[in-house]
């Protein structure tokens, strides 16, 4: 059986790639996709620990995280469509209505 460190490193790598995308990209849709990637990395951690402790609680939490990701994607994309209708842009740099 694989040592758990491998799964933790995989999850860490996906988390960091996702946070790179959140910080570096200007396209809001790709930022949202990077957030999905981060949530997915968390799921890998939960499932790995669930497997190694022989408990199913981690899988239950991973299911909740999937539901949460679905809700977040729906609301985020709804906000994005409303914003695109008003301002005709999806770039994070140009979303400065609340900037003082």
């Amino acid at each position, binding site marked *: 059986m694989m040592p758990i460190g491998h799964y*933790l490193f995989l999850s860490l790598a996906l988390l960091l790639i996702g946070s790179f995308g959140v910080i570096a990209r200007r396209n809001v849709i790709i930022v949202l996709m990077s957030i999905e990637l981060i949530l997915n990395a968390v799921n890998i951690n939960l499932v790995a620990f669930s497997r190694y*402790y022989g408990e199913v609680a981690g899988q239950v939490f991973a299911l*909740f995280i999937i*539901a949460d990701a679905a809700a977040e994607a729906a609301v985020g994309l709804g906000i994005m469509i409303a914003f695109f209708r008003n301002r005709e842009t999806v770039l994070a740099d140009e979303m400065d209505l609340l900037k003082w």
Partner: protein
Amino acid sequence: MLDRVIFFSFAGIAVISALLMVTRRNAIHSAICLITTLLATAGIFLQLRAEFLFISQIIVYVGGIMVLFIFVIMLVRLDVPLPRVRSRWRQWAAFFVALAVFLEAAVVLLMARKTPGQGLLILNPAAADKLPPNTEDLAKSLFGTYLLPFEIASILLLVAMVGAVVMAKKRTDAP
């Protein structure tokens, strides 16, 4: 041995397509790469004996969320690459943040491996091979111990659905 081959092939696919996802300029290509990452993650769930999560990852993430993303990308006409703007400092900042966090976590994990008995990698090896096919256990846990969070999640999904409809609806009484 077979475990290793399966894990490293799925992990390699996941990490490489995640890297492609954050670097492609065309949003549709990014979405396709993210779908590949999610499918590889589903394979890793299967290797970890989480059958129900494997199938719900494919159905919910790939079949639901990513289709929604692709719909929106095509709706706002992002399937052509955006003009390139020089914002190098932001990419360097993101790179250094990611590198710093990676080094920190890698040091913690390696230290934990070097000093057994105090680290976080110490697990009971007897429990490790005692997870039978467990969809039934998952259902019992979900509808027993975690019934209240389950109901709260359903309310969350309802609220998100109403919110998304309200956000995306065209206002008819716009001034």
